């Protein structure tokens, strides 16, 4: 029965991805954020909702995380990184990077001795973290429109689709042990809280000190995302050059 529901989950996720990715080709891959955000009105409402969730749940949880001793914070951050290693291995394989997949698997197995709370491998052969979003990028699938989803936050059609696929296809989901089920259950909340805590001041600066926190978040997200795309920086060059040429 469990296996059947997993298969159903996979089919649903595949369907979501196919539907979502059909939108990836429609939005232009340019930097101009307004063009990338055709659902701005809806996105702003979802952003406002997420900000409330952050006010009442995530920011207080991140504050509590920051009250932990350094060692405790490190253990939770290690755990969050460890749970993503199976996805790194799977996606590295799909990207043809077998060596990275092997390093990811090795690190997952070794650190698994402590359930990921300790980093036993240190800095030796650290795998390049990758996910299904990167895999789609590897196969030249465009990012699609900018979309803010409830609880998941800002992203593009492609990155959100990638997140759904990574969540469902993570090999931890298929391990039929109570420990694996517990890890899966706490995985996302731990990742959210450690991310928020590890970037506490940056995020608070955007949240509390912006003229328009939505626009600032969108700009930062899209610029950061573009940095990972081939030739994306050339979009910036055009914008800078055309401005400077008007001054001449």
């Amino acid at each position, binding site marked *: 029965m469990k296996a059947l529901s997993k298969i159903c989950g996979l089919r649903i996720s595949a369907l979501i991805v196919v539907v979502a990715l059909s939108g990836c080709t429609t939005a232009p891959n340019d930097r101009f954020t*307004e063009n990338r955000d055709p659902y701005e009105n809806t996105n702003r409402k979802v952003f406002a909702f997420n900000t409330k969730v952050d006010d009442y749940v995530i920011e207080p949880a991140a504050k509590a995380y920051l009250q932990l001793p350094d060692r405790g914070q490190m253990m939770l951050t290690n755990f969050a990184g460890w749970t993503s290693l199976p996805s790194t291995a799977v996606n590295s394989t799909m990207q043809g990077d077998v060596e990275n997949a092997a390093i990811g698997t090795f690190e997952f197995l070794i650190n698994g001795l402590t359930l990921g709370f300790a980093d036993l491998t240190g800095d030796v052969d650290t795998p390049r973290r990758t996910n299904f979003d990167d895999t789609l990028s590897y196969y030249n699938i465009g990012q699609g429109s900018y979309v803010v989803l409830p609880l998941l936050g800002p992203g593009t059609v492609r990155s959100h689709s990638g997140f759904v696929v990574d969540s469902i296809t993570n090999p931890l989901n298929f391990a039929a042990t109570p420990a694996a089920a517990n890890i899966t259950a706490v995985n996302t909340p731990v990742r959210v809280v450690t991310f928020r805590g590890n970037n506490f001041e940056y995020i608070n600066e955007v949240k509390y000190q912006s003229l328009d926190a939505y626009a600032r978040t969108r700009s930062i997200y899209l610029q950061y995302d573009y940095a990972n795309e081939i030739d994306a920086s050339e979009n910036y060059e055009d914008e800078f050059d055309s401005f*400077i*040429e008007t001054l001449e």
Partner: protein
Amino acid sequence: MHRHLHICRDAIMRILVGLALGFMLTSAAYADRTDEAAKMIETLVAEIQDIAATVTIGDYIYKQSDDIIDRYFKYETLASFTIGPYWRKASDAQRQRYLKTFRAVVVEQAANNFDYFRSLEYHFQSSEKKGENWIIVNGIVHDKTGKYPDAAISWRINDMPGQDLYIFDLSFENVSMILTQKDENMAVIRQNKGNLDALIDLLAKRSEELRQARLRN
């Protein structure tokens, strides 16, 4: 025949000398200023760290930040970039008001963040020409407290022949400060149906909040 050869040799020599002179003149016009740009950034960073290490009085830090903007940036050019096409549409009065309020926010933000500069170290990595108009100086920012991981930093320097170098932009981990500011400003204007005054009012409010915060510290 002999005379013919002489004329031919003279002509070739003249062409070669002409080409050499032309090459030298072009090289002078497009002199490589990548080292100068890197040096400028190192001087700026040293100056900031000097101020951060020795001064704690808010008003003095504000004045120093204001002075740094004049010496290393071309403020009016940067400010006009941050509102895109709305700069051309703005009246003179609006432009003056925008320049004043935007500057107040930038300087207050810099003055409020001076504490943060105290724990930072800058390590130069490379300086390279990008296109005709720019030099990019790359470095790493290292937080001595270990609180933050190392971050890649890039300075975009305007390099127009015959003009002084000036800083146009600063990027952290490929996120450009000036593009972020421009996107935010433009979004505020658009949300207010193209009204530049709405942005200026918001900036005035923000600079006052930052000033109060600086005075409290």
